[in-house]
């Protein structure tokens, strides 16, 4: 089980290269979404390693807030010339 967690963490570190060197803002948002889902799977697998079933609730709560993050980021990061979109 631990080798699987190690492989997922290594792939998340490789994906973080796209956050550092992304040419534009939507590249970075897509890479952030991928890293979030990968660590959500790590939380589910850690629940089976420690044999405590309460850790799945942490994964559920994190999934809700990752969705809210992506929606708010792609709504409010507009072009700099357009100015504020408003609320």
């Amino acid at each position, binding site marked *: 089980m631990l080798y699987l967690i190690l492989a997922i963490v290594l792939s998340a570190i490789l994906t973080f290269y796209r956050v550092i060197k992304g040419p534009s803002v939507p590249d970075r948002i897509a890479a952030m979404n991928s890293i*979030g889902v990968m660590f959500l799977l790590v939380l589910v697998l*850690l629940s089976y390693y420690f044999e405590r079933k309460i850790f799945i609730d*942490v994964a559920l709560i994190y999934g809700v807030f990752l969705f809210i993050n992506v929606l708010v980021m792609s709504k409010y990061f507009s072009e700099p010339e357009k100015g504020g979109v408003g609320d």
Partner: protein
Amino acid sequence: MINLIFNLLMIFLVITAFFMVFTKDISNSVIALPVFGVILVVIFVILQAPDAAMAEAIIAAGLTTVFFVITINKTEY
């Protein structure tokens, strides 16, 4: 084996924090904030503290990022 994963996550946390401080544009710094939050959640889970992990998932990945994004949109940067 669990110590190796723990040390790897610690190094990843330091890399994320340095990227957030030393980047040029301010929106890149805000995008890297949820990644910082989720690594901290996994570290809390490995240290056997699920209630602190839930609070961290709500605060760092949910509330703070939304406040920063709306504040950047309202002001001229």
